[in-house]
């Protein structure tokens, strides 16, 4: 009796169920359409054309008539191009800022999380550089690092340093200066993510360690660091990707100089495309950048899988 009743309702609904499916499908596509169309036009089509453009020699001044198919020549040239090689090398050097950022952020996060009063006040302080405009920050640092008049060198000279570095104007110190600014601006982001990670560590782990009489250092090494390893891994990857995308600071502060010492990949692409107007070559460089970032993302996926159960 009961079964037949449920069967009959099921069969009576099956007709309207079909039309509901159709309705749902239409609604689904309508709702998703604006985003899908936008992503297709502004990201997917450009991405596909990037590969095509990278196979051409295209001087943009001549418009579309300036297109000339040259196959893989751009890529052949790319691997012999000293300027591009230097920019890649600079990107790799720039990665050194990532571990420093992680270390400082972790220390600040732990101290702010447990050891101070006015926790949210300190969060705001250390987060501020991250939300501030990069251009404004860059201009301020340009003046602070001014070789002869800047307060940084003024301070160093008052300490008795007779010949302080010229910072951004000196090929040896320009990239380290950029790194310092990067660390300073990134601490806020990393600290906040670390704070969230710290919240998710079960407190009973520490309680158990307290009962065993573990020292603070021991607890830090045996509980905090391993429990935070997924967070650290995530921040490491984000930091590396972000580092490869560095542009604003370079564009405002050094334009890749002095003597190409701060020329990074994205700035090199910008320079080739929009200053030298070599679209094809810049596209080939972009393909390379894309491949690098894809590789890092791949490592992230692989690493996350390995890290799920610690």
């Amino acid at each position, binding site marked *: 009796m009961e079964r037949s009743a449920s069967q009959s309702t099921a069969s009576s609904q099956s007709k309207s169920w079909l039309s509901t499916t159709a309705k*749902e499908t*239409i*609604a*689904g*596509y309508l*709702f*998703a359409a*604006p*985003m899908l169309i*936008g*992503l297709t036009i*502004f990201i997917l*089509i*450009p991405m596909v*054309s*990037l590969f095509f*453009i990278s196979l051409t020699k295209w001087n*943009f001044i001549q418009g*579309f008539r300036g297109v000339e198919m040259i196959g893989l020549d751009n890529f052949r040239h790319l691997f012999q191009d000293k300027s591009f090689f230097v920019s890649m090398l600079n990107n790799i050097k720039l990665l050194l800022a990532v571990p420093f950022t992680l270390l400082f952020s972790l220390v600040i996060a732990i101290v702010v999380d447990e*050891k*101070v*009063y006015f926790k949210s006040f*300190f969060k*705001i*302080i250390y*987060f*501020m*550089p991250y*939300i*501030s*405009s990069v*251009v*404004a920050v860059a*201009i*301020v*640092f340009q*003046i602070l690092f001014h070789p002869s008049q800047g*307060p940084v060198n003024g*301070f160093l000279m008052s300490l008795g340093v007779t010949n302080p570095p010229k910072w951004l104007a000196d090929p040896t110190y320009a990239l380290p200066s950029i790194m310092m600014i990067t660390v*300073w601006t990134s601490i806020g982001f990393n600290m*906040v*993510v670390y*704070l*969230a990670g710290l*919240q998710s560590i079960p*407190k009973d782990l520490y*309680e158990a360690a307290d009962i065993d009489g573990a020292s603070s250092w021991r607890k830090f090494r045996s509980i905090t660091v391993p429990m935070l390893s997924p967070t650290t891994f995530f921040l490491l990857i*984000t930091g590396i*990707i972000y580092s490869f*995308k560095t*542009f*604003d600071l370079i*564009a*405002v502060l050094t334009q890749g100089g002095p003597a190409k010492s701060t020329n990074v990949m994205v700035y090199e*692409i910008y320079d080739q495309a*929009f200053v030298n107007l070599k679209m094809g070559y810049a*596209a080939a460089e*972009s393909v390379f*950048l894309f491949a690098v*970032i894809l590789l890092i993302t791949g490592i992230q996926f692989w690493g996350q899988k390995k890290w799920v159960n610690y």
Partner: protein
Amino acid sequence: MEHPISAPNVSSTHRPKRAKLSLTKIIVTVIMLVIGIIFLLPFIWMLSASFKPEADVFKYPVQWIPHTWNVVENYRAVWFGDPPFMLYYWNSIKVSVMTILISVITSAMAAYAFSKINFRGRDTLFIIVLLTFMIPGQAVLVPQFIMYRSLGLFDTHIGLVLLESFSALGTFMLRQAFMSIHSEFIESAKIDGAGHARIFAQIALPLVQPFIATYAILRFIWTWNDYQAPLIFLRSPELFTVQLGINRFADATGEYYSLIMAGTCSAILPLLIVFLLAQKHVIGGIALGGVKG
């Protein structure tokens, strides 16, 4: 309803000492305060320089509190001088507001479709959306530029807005939010005869308001701060956003550092206001999504 910043409640059993002031904690707080002030010195220097007459900017030792004040003159020169900051501000506000509107609406709609509507091909489409997230914006600058030149979107605000509006990130963040709504809400509304448009506008959207606010604020910060896209896709000075304008201003005024600092202060001010008013959204959103603009 869940707030996006649901910091797990720290168990009260863990810190019974809270009530008593601890000396170590006070000392650490003071040390962190000193470090914090050193950390923010670039901002303090910037603010103080923007208040001074030009002659005092590079005096050493630094006059953290200006001996002579020149605030009104400096800021008037920046805001109403040439090039005019007022115009850059207006452009940035215009671009940011339009970007937020388009971005929030399209992201929320797509997020709703990907979480609350069952349709064929949904998962495939969602994976495609996520894949676009892996494409770094810098890699597609060249084709975007060529496309913009041929479509007439180059050197227009709407072009810039469209470029910044579509990202998988918003869809992803808001999808997470919609998934936290129980399906019974939607099902019972459907039984009452409501279509998806009504359910979306009257039930789903109000329930995820805090997430929308978080995303809108983050989008504001990123758009306001963006330098690369305006640099490449705008050419006419009268269309410049604050970030472009301030750099142009620094080039044009050359050695007037007090004015340049008044300019940088003005560029950061809206961010600071938004951040202080909505810091829980900003910090919570960053922690939640672990996102980096």
